[in-house]
């Protein structure tokens, strides 16, 4: 298998799907001539031309609506947001139109659109550029929300998202673009709605997604040194949530920590905890804890920023609490 970056894996997914299906096109700010703000679309303008790799004005609401309108009449747009922070301007089109057209038309109209771009914080980008909005979109019936953590998942899931008949919110990790991993050489699809056990273990389940997968894996490594065997479940898709995989793991370990980048209040982890306590209450040997971003706007100062983030020490502390090793 080739070792490539998350960025190049996304690029391959878009390129392959655009070669396969002439109705697939990419639009967004700086996707063409500039080659992508994060270079995900590098080389695509040269191969596919300006009708299929469309540079837009800075007009998120407008071009998201253009994507939805094009999808309503059968095209398959990939709408790139430079970041999901800017996509707040477009949320009316995603929530009020894309997510609703099938239902309020009684099944007549599909919106097979992908909305994608980086979410979450990077380094010292401050409050308006460092937000994890997956719980907002996951709240909406009619949307699917996908968040790959590895290059292989990024490619396989993006290809699935492009082929999906429903609108997919595809949130990439801004800090993941340069990360590398093995990606199969042959054509493959990673199914939407399936979590993945990234590390097997028997003592505690760490449930995570996107950037917090690496946080959980690092914590698991350190815990292993102390003789604690953590299982790491990467949700990969937030909606529909793969309850089966989560519940199977927690039924085995009897303890769970949900790790996420976003704020705790009404976050993704709240939904995961709900499912666990509702479905397998009797399997639990401890309350399910959550490690999240601090419930504050992101500070600029790097020490404060670091303190706000979910990190391995916080995960390890939570694990020890559910194992009753520390108070």
């Amino acid at each position: 298998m080739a070792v490539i970056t998350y960025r190049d894996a996304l690029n391959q997914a878009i390129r392959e799907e655009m070669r396969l299906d002439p109705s697939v096109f990419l639009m967004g700010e700086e996707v063409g001539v500039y080659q992508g703000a994060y270079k995900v679309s590098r080389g695509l303008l040269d191969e596919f031309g300006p009708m299929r790799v469309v540079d837009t004005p800075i007009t998120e609401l407008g071009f998201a609506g253009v994507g939805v309108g094009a999808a309503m009449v059968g095209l398959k747009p990939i709408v790139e947001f430079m970041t999901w922070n800017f996509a707040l301007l477009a949320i009316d089109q995603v929530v009020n139109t894309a997510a609703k057209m099938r239902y309020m038309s009684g099944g007549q109209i599909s919106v097979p659109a992908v909305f994608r771009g980086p979410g979450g914080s990077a380094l010292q980008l401050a409050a308006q550029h460092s937000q994890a909005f997956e719980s907002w979109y996951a709240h909406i019936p009619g949307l699917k929300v996908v968040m790959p953590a590895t290059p292989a998942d990024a490619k396989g899931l993006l290809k699935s998202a492009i082929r999906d008949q429903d609108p997919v919110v595809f949130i990439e990790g801004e800090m993941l673009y340069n990360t590398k991993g093995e990606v199969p050489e042959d054509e493959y699809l990673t199914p939407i709605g399936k979590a993945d056990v990234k590390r097997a273990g028997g003592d505690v389940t760490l449930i995570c997604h996107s950037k917090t997968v690496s946080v959980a894996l690092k914590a698991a490594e350190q815990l292993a040194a102390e003789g604690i065997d953590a299982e790491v479940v990467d949700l990969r898709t937030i909606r529909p949530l793969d309850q089966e995989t989560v519940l199977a793991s927690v039924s085995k370990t009897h303890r769970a920590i949900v790790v996420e980048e976003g704020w705790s209040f009404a976050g993704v982890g709240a939904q995961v905890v709900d499912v666990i306590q509702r479905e397998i209450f009797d399997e639990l040997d401890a309350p399910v804890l959550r490690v999240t971003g601090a419930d504050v706007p992101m500070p600029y100062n790097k020490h404060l920023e670091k303190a706000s983030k979910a990190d391995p020490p916080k995960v390890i502390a939570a694990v020890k609490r559910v194992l009753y090793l520390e108070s």
Partner: protein
Amino acid sequence: MKTTESKPRKSAVAPVATAAPGPDADTRRSWLRQMLLIRRFEEKAGEAYSLGKIGGFCHLYIGQEAVAVGSIAAMRGDDYITASYREHGHALARGMSARAAMAELFGKAAGCSHGKGGSMHLIDASLGFLGGHGIVGGHIPLTTGMAFAIKYREEDRVAVCYFGEAAVNNGAFHEALNMAALWKLPAIYICENNRYGMGTALERASAVYDISERAGSYDMDREVVDGQDVLAVYEAMARAVKRARENKHPTLLEIRTYRFMGHSMSDPIHGHYRTREEVEEHRKRDPIVVWGEKLRADGLIDEKGIKALDADCLSEVEDAYRFADAAPDPEPGELWTDVYANGGTP
């Protein structure tokens, strides 16, 4: 240093007489029938609403009938249409049956959207009638997207959007028109200027009163049209359709009209924001009366003929009402369908 020269701007368009032969007598009479059907349909919908047969919000089109009828008459059957939540008239003019529309207002399974959309979301994809949208201005970029798809596929359809004058102060309007002009898309934006965004008069909401001037910001063709004259609407629309279909030039049409009823069913016809006298004055130019008189003057119909058309429409609407009233509700299981493709569940 290289400078970007600004291109000469289009001046305000002076409407030119359409050279093509006008619509024939049958077509002219059919417009009167369509307007009458919409009027009678809306009156019946108002009645059904007061009886509790129709729920939620319901926005009647009475007074504006000539806009939908005249403009849709100038389109082709495979063109795309989106509209706001005041869209009953457009759906009927496009060819949706009164039964399918009324049943949707009643929330019945036989409705065009299977009872899941209601008054604000009349949709029939087979007619290219793609909503029925409830957020002011939110559907304008969708039309730009449909026009983009037309150009992408190298088709010769056009995409048409209807919205009220209050929507032009919304960012979505500007973003959508800018891209349509920038990319030369076959889109037609029809602003139905009925003077009031709910209870706010145009002059209290907009710094520029001549809405067509907004097109100047995007170097887009524009026209101001008398919305109480169905022929004037048709002719202006025919020019816009020709520009869009043949040259991929978008147009902003400001069609000046008037809403004879309140904003929605809970809003009285006159009161806080407009006077009885104002409404009465506008009612003197009822588009149905205006067109009926024109047809009579041209010898295309007589009083008896108009009465017969009206009776025919009343009977069609009564039939639609009975149909909708008797039609079954959606099955309880329908709650969970159409959220995702292929029966996917949340």
